[in-house]
């Protein structure tokens, strides 16, 4: 029996600076940034006051007023991007056995915006310890348990197979897609609508990252605030968004003549078992995840043409990750462009992993490596080729994308041009 392979046949992206794949790619390929002073609430009391916000009109994206009322912003993103990915794939899901269609959604912080806002109401602005249920919205339970996102997407696309939310902090966006890949490979589903969504730009999120100085305090020039691998960087910039994919078993996709954007060739996740927020400088666990993902893809490190970095813009991360690339790719790490799109779209926690998978696929489609914006003063400790400021034309047949997050999770995925030799 030949192993089942997994193709990406549909993509949609909701990212700061542009909704839809085309707007997203033009932002990245032009090296523009979408970070700005926070507009969702008054950021003055906070240490960090910038974010990468989306100008999102849910009704313009086809959500009914009832759906808008019921769903947290992150769930709205998920439904819109999932529908978009299905439309892009051209697959007629209604013609398939619904039990063979599944949903896997990554989200790090679920319905944070909804919970923050509703808490404020039922607690009367934080006054009541015994919060008042009479002011609670009827769908508050769906904010409590974010598997409601998977339910909304399953209803939206007509999936009746395995459905779940994968919530591994900032690697959720890679891990949800990796989970879906496993289900297709083992034969539990033929089609998975997979991706991730987070909408964390809320006072409670700003406060909790302020408390550990993880986000940048620099707000004089918001468009320059996210500076991964730059010697002057001092924390990440919070973002929001979603990216979704239609994943299909390869033969399933071929039979219907689908356009195959890319193959998901390898995936792995490992834990550092070290600290909930800290990283050891040697990058050993991320390196192990990369090694296993390459092994699953049956690729040598030298096959990788571009590394889409986690590149959050904290000193700790940038050095950890640079060490992990050297450890796993050897000398090839020095010869391979590495860039962080968080410099342009910020860090949308559980969503960014999927958004970065989309960027990786687009890099292959265009043979263009997106740049690391705002990288003017290289950190001497970070001595790889981070593609500063300007995108670069480069033949790109295989991409490594990685994520690193709270809880110690380290994930890696290898994407490849589909026409490479059949396994």
């Amino acid at each position, binding site marked *: 029996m030949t192993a089942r392979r997994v193709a990406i046949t549909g993509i949609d992206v909701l990212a700061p600076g542009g909704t839809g794949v085309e707007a997203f790619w033009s932002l990245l390929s032009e090296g523009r940034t979408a970070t700005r002073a926070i507009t969702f609430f008054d950021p003055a009391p906070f240490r960090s006051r910038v974010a990468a916000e989306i100008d999102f009109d849910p009704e313009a994206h086809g959500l009914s007023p009832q759906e808008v009322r019921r769903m947290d912003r992150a769930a709205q993103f998920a439904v819109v991007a999932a529908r978009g990915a299905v439309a892009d794939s051209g697959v007629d899901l209604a013609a398939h056995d619904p039990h063979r269609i599944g949903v896997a959604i990554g989200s790090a912080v679920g319905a944070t915006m909804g919970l923050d806002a509703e808490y404020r109401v039922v607690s009367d602005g934080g006054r009541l310890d*015994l919060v008042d249920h009479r002011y609670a919205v009827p769908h508050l339970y769906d904010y409590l348990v974010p598997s409601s996102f998977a339910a909304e997407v399953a209803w939206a696309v*007509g999936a009746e197979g395995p459905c779940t939310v994968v919530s*591994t*902090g900032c690697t959720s966006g890679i891990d949800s897609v990796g989970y879906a890949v496993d289900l297709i490979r083992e034969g539990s589903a033929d089609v998975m609508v997979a991706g991730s969504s987070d909408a964390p730009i809320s006072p409670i999120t700003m406060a*909790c990252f302020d408390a550990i100085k993880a986000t940048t305090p620099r707000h004089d020039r918001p468009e320059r605030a996210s500076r991964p691998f730059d010697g002057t960087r001092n924390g990440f910039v919070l973002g929001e968004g979603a990216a979704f994919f239609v994943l299909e078993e390869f033969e399933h996709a071929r039979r219907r003549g689908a356009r195959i954007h890319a193959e998901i060739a390898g995936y792995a996740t490992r834990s550092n078992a070290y600290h909930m927020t800290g990283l050891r400088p040697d990058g050993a666990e991320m390196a*192990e995840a990369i090694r296993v993902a390459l092994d699953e893809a049956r690729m040598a490190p030298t096959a990788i043409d571009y590394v889409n970095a986690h590149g959050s813009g904290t000193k700790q991360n940038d050095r950890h990750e640079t060490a992990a690339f050297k450890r796993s790719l050897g000398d090839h790490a020095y010869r391979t462009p590495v860039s962080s799109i968080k410099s342009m779209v910020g860090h949308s926690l559980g969503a960014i992993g999927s958004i970065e998978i989309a960027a990786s696929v687009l890099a292959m489609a265009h043979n263009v490596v997106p740049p690391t914006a705002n990288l003017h003063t290289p950190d001497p400790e970070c001595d790889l080729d981070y593609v500063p400021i300007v995108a670069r034309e480069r033949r790109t047949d295989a991409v490594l994308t990685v994520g690193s997050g709270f809880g110690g999770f380290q994930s890696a995925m290898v994407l490849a041009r589909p026409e490479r030799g059949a396994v």
Partner: protein
Amino acid sequence: MNTPVVVTGLGVVSPNGLGAADYWAATLVGKSGLSRITRFDPSQYPARLAGEIHGFAAEEHLPSRLLPQTDRMTRLALVAADWALADAGVSTAERPAFEMGVITASASGGFEFGQNELRKLWSRGGQYVSAYQSFAWFYAVNSGQISIRHGLKGPSGVVVSDQAGGLDAVAQARRQIRKGTPLIVSGGVDASLCPWGWVAQTAGGRLSTSDEPSRAYLPFDSAARGHVPGEGGAILIMEDLAAARARGARVYGEVAGYGATFDPRPGSGRAPGLRKAIELALADADTGPAAVDLVFADAAALPELDRSEAAALCAVFGARGVPVTAPKTMTGRLYSGAAPLDLATAFLAMREGIIPPTVNVEAAAEHRLDLVTRQTRDAELRTVLVLARGHGGFNSAMVLRSARDTDPPVANERKTHVR
């Protein structure tokens, strides 16, 4: 490739018993953990009963530095993981770190911790929010903390599918073992019994409003009027059978089959998915309905949901075709902890040859179930089916096989006492 995956250790934290031995003893005598909420004054709320865990003193089990940075559900999960590893006789320090992982389910994260920090934010200001908030409340916290405490660097993860998630996590653990990681710590523990969590659970109107613990949570009874929530769950040590045998481990039994579906969108007119999930799990276990000796029901205790579960069971097994039980009537519904606790209970039931009861329930004739009520029933249990459903339409089913029926069979003489 499809190597058998077995359970070798149990860690139980339940409203009616701390530790698998206490829990099992309580379950056999029908001792309930449901009572009026003591954690806060519930008088003003429409529902006032819960399955609280009493007598759990985290400081007796965990280092003091962990206390300020953990929610109650994480403390319970850490202790359950300690107990499960000890029960399995696994010394994590002596094993390669990348060959052990942790995959748990979560439903609400560290919600009580979150309430405290939200209160500080809105009543006093953002600068009063704890430095631990960023990771104490999120859904990945239990997997992260367990991995750190025991040095588990292998494949790890967290799934959220409401109450079905406990089975989905165990299935994901089995998947990773089959891909080559010999040991995964899995299961789930949830707790959100704080006013903010209570108000969120109350929303939607699925909780029982009864004040009488023995009359409040009555699945499959004609008086079913909602459920009582609880806190707790179970952590399971899962291993590749060959690896477990090689180290001479005591085996509780095998996770032999799994299936998951999602219900059609409301109003579609299509049949709900539980029956299909059961059929998928049986096929995955390479067995059929006739082999199943016992079913642990999801037991939602809402008339519509009870009817659909009973209909699925009758469709697969025939009317009164298999004994059915719901010991969660003694604990309340534990969200992501419910199914892992049912799995633990099922392994203990198989080992002892005893079906634990569905307490307080008088099975309504319309459901046509052989519901084991009032007291235990002796039975040879070789194959057990565990069901779990999550709000919105998640259906998961898991087939377990007893230790003596694992393929190849394992000797089970080492009947050490569970903690």
